């Protein structure tokens, strides 16, 4: 259509202008009745079990807050973006969330590589970013290095170093004191989050009396784990200490099919999923794994009601990142309320003073003078974590003993203490 024909269409332009004016008028009157919502962008992996719980859990929290009147009368609106497990897609989603959808804060991903790619963008676009599931210590180490630019990022899940420490604490009680284990081989996947995890394992295992015989890093593309288990078996350790998240089903199934007689203990993120028993056809029987929550374990009074709400709405149990994503929405809402503003710098200041009891424990962030600012505090009175074991299709909690609802038990092919 040329300009002439456009202008020649008599009355079209004035009508267009009239329409725009009318729309503006209508939206003005709508705004007068209702305050603008607080928008939270949620960038997650829709196709991965761990990531797929993130948006749903955030929506439950938003609905609960809205049902209770919102934040100073402002509703919470959750806008979700699927990142296809890709850092590049996540960056694009983040830019769109901030520039076009005008979100006030972003909850993003369970993959460290993704969060590390988003971190500089949170600084550039001055938008609060919190991850409910990534673990790399580098995320918070970057904040210490350049607080001014990176202060917008918060780590809503445990750092790898802290996860390793919690695994060691549990190993001391369950394996050393209980089963007199003395040796271990570390088996972890080659990824950003396991570099600090492995370093921490290598430091804390000898402290609890476990000698590390070998340290094997597995490519996340590995499909056949037989050579790896073969090598580990040759070293005759008492236990395999794991650090796996991107891989899970395949090593577990092959461990069982080959009847590797050594127990697996440590981090196995996929084992935290309620579907893992079915995914592995029960091969996960006996696997012991670190978690921040477990079915039927009331870590705080908020844990079980959340699980119930999630299950009612989506028909399955949330992944570990679902719990934290739910808490993150509450923490952001709480920070905005305390800040009395949606200005990012003020939200950051308020978030730093968070003291909130969520579904995984009491959440407080480490201060800016620590080596890992904005990381979660761990330990008694904060977040202690759990040590669960798959037994006969159920995840039972073994540790800490106060919250245990089961006893450690291994399938018959595992030879405990025969070395």
């Amino acid at each position: 259509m040329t300009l002439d024909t456009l202008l020649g269409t008599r009355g079209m332009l004035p009508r267009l202008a009239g329409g725009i004016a009318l729309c503006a008028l209508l939206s003005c009157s709508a705004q007068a009745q209702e305050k603008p919502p607080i928008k939270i962008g949620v960038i997650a992996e829709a196709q991965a079990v761990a990531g797929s719980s993130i948006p749903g859990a955030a929506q439950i929290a938003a609905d609960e807050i809205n049902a209770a009147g919102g934040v100073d009368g402002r509703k919470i609106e959750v806008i979700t973006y699927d990142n296809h497990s890709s850092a590049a897609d996540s960056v694009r989603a983040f830019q769109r969330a901030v520039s076009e959808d005008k979100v006030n804060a972003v909850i993003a991903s369970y993959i460290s590589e993704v969060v590390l790619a988003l971190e500089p963008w949170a600084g550039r676009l001055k938008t609060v970013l919190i991850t409910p599931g990534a673990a790399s210590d580098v995320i918070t180490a970057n904040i210490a290095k350049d607080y001014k630019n990176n202060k917008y990022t918060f780590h809503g899940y445990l750092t790898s170093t802290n996860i390793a420490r919690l695994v060691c604490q549990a190993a001391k009680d369950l394996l050393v004191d209980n089963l007199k284990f003395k040796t271990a081989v570390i088996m972890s996947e080659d990824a950003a989050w396991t570099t600090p995890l492995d370093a921490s394992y290598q430091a804390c295992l000898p402290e609890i009396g476990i000698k590390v015989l070998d340290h094997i890093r597995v490519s996340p593309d590995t499909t056949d784990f037989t050579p790896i288990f073969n090598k580990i078996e040759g070293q005759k350790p008492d236990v395999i200490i794991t650090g796996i998240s991107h891989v899970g089903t395949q090593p577990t199934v092959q461990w069982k099919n080959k009847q590797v007689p050594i127990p697996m203990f440590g981090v196995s993120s996929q084992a935290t999923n309620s579907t893992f028993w079915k995914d592995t056809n029960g091969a996960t029987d006996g696997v012991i794994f670190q978690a921040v929550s477990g079915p039927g374990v009331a870590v705080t009074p908020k844990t079980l009601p959340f699980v119930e709400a999630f299950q009612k709405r989506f028909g399955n149990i949330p992944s570990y990142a679902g719990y934290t994503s739910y808490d993150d929405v509450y923490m952001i809402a709480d920070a905005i309320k305390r800040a009395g503003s949606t200005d990012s710098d003020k939200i950051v200041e308020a978030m730093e003073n968070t003291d909130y009891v969520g579904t995984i424990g009491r959440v407080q962030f480490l201060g800016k003078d620590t080596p890992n600012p904005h990381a979660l505090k761990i330990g008694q009175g904060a977040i202690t974590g759990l040590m669960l074991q798959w037994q006969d299709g159920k995840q039972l909690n073994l540790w800490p003993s106060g919250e245990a609802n089961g006893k450690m038990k291994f399938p018959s092919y595992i030879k405990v203490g025969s070395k």
Partner: protein
Amino acid sequence: MLGLQIIVDGFAISALYALGATGFTLIFGVSGVLNLSHGAIMVSAAVGAWALHDLLAQNAYIGATFGVVLAMIVSLVTYGVIVRPIQVSRSIREEEKEIFILTATLLWGIILQEVIAYLFTNNAKSVVPIVDGVVSVLGVRIPANEIFTAIICWLVIGLLWLLVNRTPAGKAVLAASMNPKGVTLLGIELNWIYIAVWAIYGALAGIAGVLLGMFLGVSSYSVGPLTASAFSIVVLGGLGSVTGSLIAAYVVGYIETITAYLISPAYRFIPSLLLLVVVMYVRPYGLLGRR
């Protein structure tokens, strides 16, 4: 003991590769189609077997059969909806059809991969094994399932050989691969031969997929690597040569296993890919391919 372990593991994985590549090369030999949705069809079979078992808690045989039938359906849909329309199209020039089919099957594979990921997530699944437990041979523990995998693979390859060489239908297929026009002159409907070959191919890829799901487990991420491995085995063996593919499957399977055991599992795929590059230079028509 390590030697025995390498021999056994290498044999099982190579048998799986051989079965997967046989179907791939059969389709190429008969209809000239390089089907780049091969990996997706294998994964559909495994995930189908897993899902049915999961939904209905049926026995392992029903799940496995369903997986194979599903692969045959997907294979026929691939032919009917993706390949055939391009082959009969008047708006695509004859000499360009090959590249169109290559691109279309690649995209079809990606579509299937995404559908599987959305329906069943991209976490790996394992198909419940038909035989459980381990067999101890000279102190080496071998999963019984691994032996079962190798036996079934060779049984199916043997049946395929009998079908092609000893039955009239098989001979018609063989003839179609040599001289399609001659076959039509004999009054055989070429289109039915193609449909039969795609169905057979679906069954072969399906059996390979289900066995792989039992042996190692598969996820939607496996689609690309499975297509790539079948493609490189077939190119290495010589396009269209079934015997060449079988030999190439064993060469690749053993090189991978030896690398994984003696160097590192992380470098598993590199030496066989290097070999492929060398073969491309020295014998571009593959080990047993015709010039």
